[in-house]
């Protein structure tokens, strides 16, 4: 096992390194998100079919992608916590859940809003939408389980098991839903086949995606740091830290 | 020198911000009976659950025959009899069925002994009555019959005498002594006045508690 792995296991080291990384990520996130939004709203060309409602993509796609990656991170962190009993990993996993859920809500909401002008209804039982809804349910399950268990260590282990089981199931869910949908409802609205985007369209999208990831990193590190402080409240370094304030 | 069966080093446990015990060290050798004492809420049950491996809500080290318990789990479990606040008796099953299941869980027990065990705890005639039709004490007795069945070396008993009448208690005390004489060890808690006298070692948790 490499040295950084053991260092990561030390809450104190993690707290400090995250504190050092935070400002950088925060600046990146702010610049990318503000710049990307301005670009997306004002400069990107409108879509020849969907008109300006197309601009929702700059929120929708980053959030949809991020919601999925966040789940992956949560499950992996949970597994590390479970196997190597690494406390910091548990804390990361715990911090992932509310962020991921909020992002999934964002993806769903923007998707639903976008659906109204394009498809004429807020909600259809389409494959992508359904699997996103299920992802949200998975998040809610992890959050609910965690909050239902009083003992922190038990809560972390239980949620880790749950998110791992969910991780195994995600590809199955995705596959099944897509297949089900094509079976019932021959492609009325395809999300996957779209005209290849011109660069003016996808470059801001890329900016927004990276911006979202940076924002996620900032939020995650802040939550994890809080978690470390609370869980390590008996440790001397936390006491010293508090006394300094 | 007899080596310790169970050795506890520097055990720490905290619940709801209250330290139940810290720096707890003790060992149990073969032939010893240890009574954990302490007032209500002092952490006796918590300690026994930690020792038996049911709870991992602690810091410190527990050794079984000089090896960390986590590494010899299988072996430890086959040498352990745990008797908790919940007697582990299914209300819809009969005493006999309850014990048969227990025997299935512990391969060292032979099914043939079940009847004599039930007789020894005074349940002859009740073998076929579902346990929910038994009195509180009779239910506990079903669970106590395991003491007669088990081949385990270490008994961990959490208030085994609850709801048992005086005659029953005296009999169980004898059984515990016999087990110790035969080279077994017993860790128990009870609020009953024991007549075991000198043969038993006491460990008081009240003195160990933190703030």
């Amino acid at each position, binding site marked *: 096992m490499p040295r950084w792995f053991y260092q990561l296991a030390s809450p104190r080291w993690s707290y400090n390194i995250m504190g050092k990384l935070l400002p950088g990520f925060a600046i990146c996130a702010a610049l990318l998100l503000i710049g990307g939004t301005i670009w997306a709203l004002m400069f990107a060309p409108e879509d020849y079919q969907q008109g300006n409602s197309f601009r929702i993509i700059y929120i929708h796609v980053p959030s949809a992608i991020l919601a999925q990656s966040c789940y992956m991170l949560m499950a992996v962190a949970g597994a590390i916590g479970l196997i190597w009993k690494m406390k910091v990993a548990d804390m990361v996993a715990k911090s992932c859940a509310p962020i991921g859920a909020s992002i999934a809500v964002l993806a769903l909401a923007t998707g639903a*809003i976008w659906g109204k002008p394009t498809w004429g209804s807020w909600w259809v039982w389409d494959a992508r939408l359904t699997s996103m809804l299920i992802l949200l349910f998975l998040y809610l399950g992890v959050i609910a389980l965690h909050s239902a268990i009083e003992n922190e260590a038990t809560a972390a282990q239980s949620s880790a098991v749950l998110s791992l089981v969910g991780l195994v199931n995600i590809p199955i869910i995705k596959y099944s839903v897509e297949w089900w949908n094509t079976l019932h409802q021959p492609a009325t609205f395809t999300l996957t086949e779209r005209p290849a985007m011109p660069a003016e369209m996808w470059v801001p999208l890329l900016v927004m995606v990276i911006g979202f990831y940076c924002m996620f990193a900032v939020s995650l590190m802040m939550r994890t740091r809080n978690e470390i402080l609370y869980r390590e409240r008996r440790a001397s370094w936390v006491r010293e830290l508090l006394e300094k304030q | 020198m007899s080596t310790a069966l169970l050795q506890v080093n520097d055990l720490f446990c905290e619940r709801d911000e209250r330290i139940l015990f810290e720096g707890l060290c003790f060992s149990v050798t073969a032939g010893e009976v240890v009574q954990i004492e302490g007032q209500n809420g002092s952490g006796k049950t918590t300690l026994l659950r930690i020792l038996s491996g049911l709870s991992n809500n602690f810091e410190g080290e527990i050794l079984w025959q000089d090896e960390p318990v986590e590494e010899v789990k299988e072996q430890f479990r086959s040498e352990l009899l745990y008797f908790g606040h919940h007697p582990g008796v299914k209300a819809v099953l009969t005493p006999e069925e309850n014990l048969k299941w227990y025997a299935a869980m512990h391969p060292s027990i032979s099914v043939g002994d079940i009847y004599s065990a039930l007789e020894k705890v005074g349940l002859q005639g009740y073998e076929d009555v579902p346990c929910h039709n038994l009195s509180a004490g009779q239910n506990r007795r079903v669970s106590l019959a395991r003491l007669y069945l088990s081949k385990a070396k270490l008994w961990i008993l959490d208030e085994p005498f609850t709801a048992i009448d005086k005659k029953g208690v005296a009999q169980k005390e004898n059984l515990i002594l016999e087990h110790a004489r035969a080279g077994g060890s017993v860790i128990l808690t009870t609020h009953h006045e024991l007549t075991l006298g000198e043969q038993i070692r006491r460990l008081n948790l009240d003195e160990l508690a933190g703030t």
Partner: protein
Amino acid sequence: MSFESFSDFLAMGGHGKYVWMSYAIALAVIVFNIVGPLLQKKKVISDLARRLRREKKAS
């Protein structure tokens, strides 16, 4: 610049309602994810500091 005027920009070719709603929700979610932890941090620190003071007093 894809828009002639500011009112055009707001109207988004008739889809203004949808676009602005999306961006508003996005803003809300981002704010939630940044401000939430900040408030949490404040609370944790004040909680722990209070506990520390109490323990000091007790000892």
